[in-house]
């Protein structure tokens, strides 16, 4: 039994129906445990005070913002090479999820930065990269919305995702380079770094990371099945119009 069998929409839908009841409670449990632990039962940091509790939102969101794009890139490549429709639809389904995580990372970053750096927005390389990533998500989703024919849209967004990934990596290095030029010896940037991480924060963070990954999987599965059904619906309606 090959992995590609799951590329069949029917098979994918059936499997999702079996997987979701496991993944959803697991994701909920992990997130709940991690967040409650993190919010209520972690000590204050000697330097950052209680703001360190934002870590449990900021870091998982930032991680998933990037991982979601990587997943979209892989799915797009699978679509372009192997022409599995489910793959293209999975990339489409993941984009809004990734964009939401990017937004969460940006907002929590700004809220965290305000008391720490004294400003809502710092053109720190990381924050700037995420802002650019947000623009990439926006463009990708807008292209999906704009093209009427679903297969054409899948092809065009696939090409955009691959080319965009190259430019996203380029932007990441460009932004690092750009800010270095201005803030050679800045110390405030180091405050946001998570290491060395106190062991008191370690476990709740692990739970949050696991929870967010599981939640991403659950959301993408759910949304992919929605997209598959929309395609099927469109086929039925087109056929009715045709007859």
């Amino acid at each position: 039994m090959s992995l590609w069998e799951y590329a069949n929409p029917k098979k994918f839908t059936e499997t999702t129906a079996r997987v979701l009841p496991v993944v959803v409670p697991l994701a909920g449990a992990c997130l709940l445990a991690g967040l409650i632990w993190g919010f209520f039962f972690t000590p204050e940091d000697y330097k950052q005070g209680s703001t360190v509790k934002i870590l449990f939102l900021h870091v998982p969101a930032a991680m998933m913002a990037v991982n979601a794009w990587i997943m979209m890139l892989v799915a797009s490549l699978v679509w372009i090479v192997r022409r599995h429709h489910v793959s293209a639809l999975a990339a489409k389904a993941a984009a809004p999820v990734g964009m939401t995580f990017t937004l969460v990372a940006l907002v929590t970053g700004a809220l965290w930065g305000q008391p720490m750096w004294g400003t809502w927005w710092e053109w720190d390389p990381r924050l700037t990269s995420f802002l650019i990533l947000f623009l990439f998500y926006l463009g990708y989703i807008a292209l999906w919305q704009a093209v009427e024919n679903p297969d054409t849209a899948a092809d065009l967004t696939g090409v955009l995702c691959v080319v965009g990934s190259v430019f996203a990596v380029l932007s990441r290095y460009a932004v690092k380079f750009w800010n270095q030029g201005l803030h050679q010896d800045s110390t405030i940037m180091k405050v946001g770094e998570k290491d060395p991480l106190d062991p008191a924060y370690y476990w709740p963070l692990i739970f949050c990371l696991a929870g967010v990954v599981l939640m991403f999987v659950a959301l993408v599965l759910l949304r992919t099945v929605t997209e598959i059904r929309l395609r099927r619906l469109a086929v039925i309606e087109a056929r009715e119009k045709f007859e």
Partner: protein
Amino acid sequence: MEFIVSDLAVARGGICVLEGVSLRLAPGQALVLRGPNGIGKTTLMRTLAGLQPALRGTISAPPESIAYAAHADGLKSTLSVAENLGFWAAVHGMAGVEAAMARMNLTDLADRRAANLSAGQKRRLGLARLLVSGRPFWLLDEPTVSLDTASVALFAEVVRAHLASGGAALMATHIDLGLAEAGLLDLTPFKATGAVQAAQGFDEAFA
């Protein structure tokens, strides 16, 4: 040097409109496609020209042998007639702009900008492009739209000469060109029944 289409299925907007289309075009032959509006003549033409993939079936033709003339003539309104035609001749690496203009009765208009041409004159310029393409198989989608009777006769003469020199033409038209040698192909029997839904790789479960 033959243009062979077998068991072709074509789709418009993801829906199969024609299936099982087979035809064969040898040098010196012409074939006229007939069928009611919306049956998929333009879709078929675009597929044959290689602009869109076929759902099923094969199209075999010598490489770079097809010249396609669509509804739109691909004219640049700010360029003159001679410039427009000269461009396409250069793209195809051919000469004979003067001769082509003469044959489509455009010589007097050579320096006029395409924007100032009438619809029929534009059409004639679009068809003159076929002459400078140097390609044997002409795919003509409603070539006679907005042509007057004299121009239609002129065009029929050009097609006849093209056939006589070893070319071939596939036309979708409702007007009788007076080409006695042209065969007729009615597309109505090939109208898709909805049975062929699956494109290459289009997963069954969607359909």
